């Protein structure tokens, strides 16, 4: 039988509030100040975030952009080539290998994190762009999505190109890729969004300032004693902007992507 003896002097309300109070205790000054201060829009926070030499937001933004663009380009390249091989070329064991490749989607990222780390350590790619870009250069999901799309293209087009004089790579480049434009844009948007927002892997693999990415950098605004909420909010909004713009212009491809291959895992 469960029994609970209320300590002397405490009311039931106090018990409910206790965890909240306990949590807030170290930051009592901040919280009370935040609650009592009048909230005003401070454009200067954006200026500080973007120009303060100690914050180095521009460097981190460029790092993030560079990595995201590289990952997108490489994924489009590798996924479309793999999808082409899995959908348009006949070879022994093709479908079995595709299923095995697709099966890797079911392995959680946390499981492969440590082996991947050790591997990259051996390559000497810790704290380098290689470590951030190469592991994300191929994706089973992207291959699956493009393969599904390529399967819908009429075989006659490829055959016509082969008779016109095109080899396999030509068919891929001249015929299949242009026709897969909607699926490729969808994949690019998904990949960009995931690479731009990546946090855990960059935090582990590249903590150095020279290769730090925006999501990791945002963590810097939160110290062990205090958090610069104002700057954190300004930096977060700046980080959201590219994704917002991408979504506004590419929302139809987002929808198409969801229809094509289910929701990205």
């Amino acid at each position: 039988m469960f029994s609970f003896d209320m300590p002397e002097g405490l009311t039931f309300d106090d018990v409910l509030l206790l965890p909240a109070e306990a949590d807030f205790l170290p930051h009592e000054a901040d919280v009370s100040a935040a609650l009592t201060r009048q909230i005003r829009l401070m454009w200067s926070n954006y200026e500080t975030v973007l120009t303060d030499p100690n914050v180095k937001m521009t460097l981190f933004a460029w790092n993030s952009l560079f990595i995201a663009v590289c990952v997108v380009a490489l994924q489009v390249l590798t996924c479309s080539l793999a999808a082409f091989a899995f959908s348009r070329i006949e070879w022994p064991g093709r479908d079995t290998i595709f299923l095995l490749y697709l099966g890797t989607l079911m392995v959680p990222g946390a499981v492969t994190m440590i082996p991947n780390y050790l591997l990259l350590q051996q390559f000497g790619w810790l704290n380098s762009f290689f470590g951030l870009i190469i592991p994300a250069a191929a994706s089973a999901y992207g291959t699956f999505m493009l393969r599904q799309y390529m399967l819908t293209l009429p075989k006659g087009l490829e055959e016509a190109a082969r008779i016109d004089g095109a080899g396999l790579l030509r068919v891929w480049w001249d015929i299949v890729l242009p026709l897969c434009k909607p699926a490729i844009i969808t994949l690019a948007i998904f990949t960009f969004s995931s690479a731009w927002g990546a946090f855990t892997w960059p935090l582990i693999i590249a903590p150095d300032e020279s290769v730090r990415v925006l999501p990791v950098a945002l963590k810097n605004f939160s110290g062990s004693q205090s958090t610069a909420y104002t700057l954190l909010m300004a930096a977060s909004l700046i980080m959201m902007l590219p994704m917002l713009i991408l979504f506004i212009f590419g929302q139809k491809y987002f929808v198409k992507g969801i229809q094509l291959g289910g929701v990205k895992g």
Partner: protein
Amino acid sequence: MADIRISKLVKLYDNGYTAVKGIDLHIRDHEFMVLVGPSGCGKTTTLRMIAGLEDISGGEIAIGDRVVNSVEPKDRDIAMVFQNYALYPHMTVYENMAYGLKLRKMPKPEIDAKVAEAARMLSLESQLAKLPKALSGGQRQRVALGRAVVRQPKAFLFDEPLSNLDAKLRGEMRFELKTLQNRLKTTMVYVTHDQIEAMTLGDRITVMSVGEIQQVASPTVVYDHPFNRFVASFIGTPVMNFITGALSRDEDLFRFAIDGGATIGLHMHHRQRLAATLGEGRVLGIRPENLSHAGHVATAASATRVDAKVDVIENMGDHQYVYLRIGGHPDPVVMKCSSHHRREPGETIPVNLDTSFAHVFADGGEYAPTLTDPAGRIPASAVGALTAPCRSPEPWSTSVNTGR
């Protein structure tokens, strides 16, 4: 320019299905050869093997002097026009037509000249900057033709190119294709299931069924002298009438006793083989245009008159198909005649059967050989086994060619 030689060609799929069963065929240089047959007869598979789009399971294909079994499609120097056009949707008409030339690294001015010439030939000059989706079905098929024409290949392959068009456009495109062939003088292989296309376009026709060649001959020969009952029924609209009965002889006159009906005299031009085929269970094949309403048209000396009951009338405008019942014969027979004379269902009319163009088949099912073949091209073994189905590939299947 080249001939195409196919020998012992086999296509066996992984699931064990044999689509092409060892066919032999020689398509001559500059010839318009039509492969015709029902769905699943192996005609398209054969064409795709010539193109290199299907692997060959057995046998050999040679284009010109070169065996091309393991040659890539792009190196066979052929052009193909597909049923669904297969135009590159992201390229303009010009780019579609120029693509093959660009891949062959032809200089741009030369490409421009060739595309312009093909566009002029096919009345596509004003469409060059458009995307295929902006064109009508007929224009798209013209672009597909243009794409093949600019390459000036050794041979053109057509895979049911007109089947997606409406009847009017089909007629126009048939005319254009024939004109094109007269102008280009190139070997053309044309696959269709439409026997009108086969009859109108082909220099010779190859009739195929169940992966085998049934007959190779000029359209006239295939129509007038079908090698077996399958060919007789496949070529001709409406199909040939098949009347079952017994064949007997009274001195010089051969008689055919229709099952459940009258006995008629046979007056065929070529009946030298009939003597060997007397007996029950024979099938008389007679085309609908060889039946006529007695009294409405002049009676040929070779005609035999029978009474028949009008069952159904199909009016086609300038002519009509009259379905008739002759006595108790189980199947109706069709008469093609002028629609100017009025007939009523249920009416009994005198009908003349002109048997000079009729055929007698052994009652051996769909592939029973013709017993009245004029050239005596039926092997003795086939005549001996009258009830056995007669199919190629046998040595005679391609040696009966009587093309132009």
